[in-house]
């Protein structure tokens, strides 16, 4: 459908998902250009995670399509989509608890996609590459942190580990499911430059967030969902002025402030 010519990297078109009789997503359409940061916000239960699951193949959409660089990827398996270049993190972090932190990156470095890139440690040096990536996302290099079992690490590190997996996979598009949730203000402040740097390296980011203040400093565009319906798409500053968005967040007739 939509091609590469206008710089669109990912296009979600009339996407709907029903779980039994429950409509989780209803006719959602939006697109994101290469190198942009898109924020996806909405109250609890508005279908944000379902949207991510539809894009990354964990859930098959009932109607509609997801176009990645012009190819319809809806219905593809998660590993195939990951290998095409869409990486994701999980809202509830999913480390491999018993493995040392750096060994958590062996799986993405082992994928067909990572093997195509030089310097992915194909010749038995995946451990070294993994340590480098962990250092890159803010693990202390000489401390014992990367060698500790992932299950022993605090949440801040585990969120970085989730990001590190996407980096190891060399994803073009990273979909971050609430990376800021559960982190202190200081931890978020140290994570923001990392995301900015990834974006400057050409990675397109889709961020699902509840922390609007931090999100709006990063995102150039936001999509607001409520009960599976897209309420708003556009500039992040305009989003908070939109009447429908205010209503979804704060109810009718009340003056909200965020």
């Amino acid at each position, binding site marked *: 459908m939509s091609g590469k010519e206008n710089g669109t990297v990912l296009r979600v078109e009339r996407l709907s998902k029903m779980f039994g009789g429950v409509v989780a997503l209803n006719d959602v359409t939006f697109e994101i250009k290469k190198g942009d940061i898109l924020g996806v916000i909405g109250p609890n239960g508005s279908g944000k995670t379902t949207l991510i699951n539809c894009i*990354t193949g*964990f859930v098959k959409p009932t109607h509609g399509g997801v176009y990645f660089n012009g190819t319809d990827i809806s219905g593809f*398996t*998660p*590993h195939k989509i*990951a*290998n095409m270049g869409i*990486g*994701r993190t*999980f809202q509830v972090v*999913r*480390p*491999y*608890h*018993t*493995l040392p932190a750096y*060994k*958590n990156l*062996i*799986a*993405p*470095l*082992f*994928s*067909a*996609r*990572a093997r195509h890139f030089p310097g992915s440690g194909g010749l*038995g040096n*995946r451990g070294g590459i993994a340590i480098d990536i962990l250092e890159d996302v803010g693990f202390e290099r000489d401390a014992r942190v990367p060698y500790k079992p992932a299950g022993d690490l605090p949440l801040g590190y585990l969120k970085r580990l989730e990001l590190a*997996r996407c980096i*190891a*996979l060399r994803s073009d598009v990273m979909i971050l499911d609430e990376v800021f949730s559960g982190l202190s203000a200081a931890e978020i402040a140290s994570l923001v430059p990392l995301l900015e740097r990834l974006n400057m390296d050409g990675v397109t980011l889709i961020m699902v967030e509840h922390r609007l203040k931090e999100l709006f400093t990063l995102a150039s565009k936001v999509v607001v969902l409520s009960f599976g319906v897209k309420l708003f798409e556009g500039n992040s500053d305009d989003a908070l002025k939109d009447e429908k968005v205010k209503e979804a967040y704060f109810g009718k007739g009340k003056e909200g402030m965020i």
Partner: protein
Amino acid sequence: MAISENKSERRLERIDRGIKARTDGIYALLSWREISYLMAPRTFLLMGLLVLPVFLPEVWQRVFCLAGIYSLLAIAFDFLFSYAGMVSLGGALWMGVGGYTVGILGSEFGLPPVFSLPIGTFLGGGICTVLLLPTLRLKGIYFAIATFIYPFIISHIIEALQIAGGTFGLADLPVIENGWVVLYVMAVLLTGIFFGIRRLVIEDVGMVFRSMMENDQAVSASGISITVLRTIAVYIASCIGCLAGGYLSVLYGWVGMSFFALDFSILPIAASVIGGPGTFAGSLLGAFILVPLTEFLRPFGPMRMVGYSVILALFVVLKPEGIFPYLTRKYNQFQRWVEV
């Protein structure tokens, strides 16, 4: 409260031996004492597997071979259980399919064991994998039940249709005449597979398997197909299991429906559990304790199973961590009582 007021409250403290700490790094290579500390357990194992059989009387050489068969099954179980997160009761399936594949290759095609055993191993492994393909999506106990059902199905098909020798099995298969060759085929294969699989699980592939065990969705989000991974894991385990089955048919020169017996599913699990799952050395140790034990207890007739079960229960109750982790701990650490 009374206890905390008691002055003589003590706590058991475990401390790494000095030599253990010294041999953790590259410095171990600086002295013979430290090198031998590192090498001793492996040397002991190699001596046990490769040299000990020479000194065994002929009856016990046979027991050694049987223990080897159960060790292979236990290693295959342990690999799937501890590194791929799949509980398999497939011992009987592997034994039966491996045994019959080698048996049919021997009786129908007249292949000598030197060909039929390797072909049977890989072909049998493939057959088992194809049979288990539809069940790969199942997890935990459901996969176990699926692997448990196949031996019944296959053995009853053989009985009902009287194929592949029917109730009597296939007799007079080509065997290896020289007893020493029979013995050392097992000793060398077991040694090779033991060290090979221990190497495999610490390699990158092994890390991917362990990642899958911990969280399969995160692995598929990392661009790796779970189905392919599970298939590979099942194929590796099936090949090891079918080798055990094929070897038994070569050892007996006969293959029959008893190859699908439940013992082959249960005993390797017992061996793995009392030896310490996840270590492979534990599986080996467990099998080499349990199989000779059944032979020792043979004179007691029907009381044999009672003694056997009691010993098994004692191991599980007294050393729940497994024998091998216990020995490792004793080797690497000492313990002392300290006042609290």
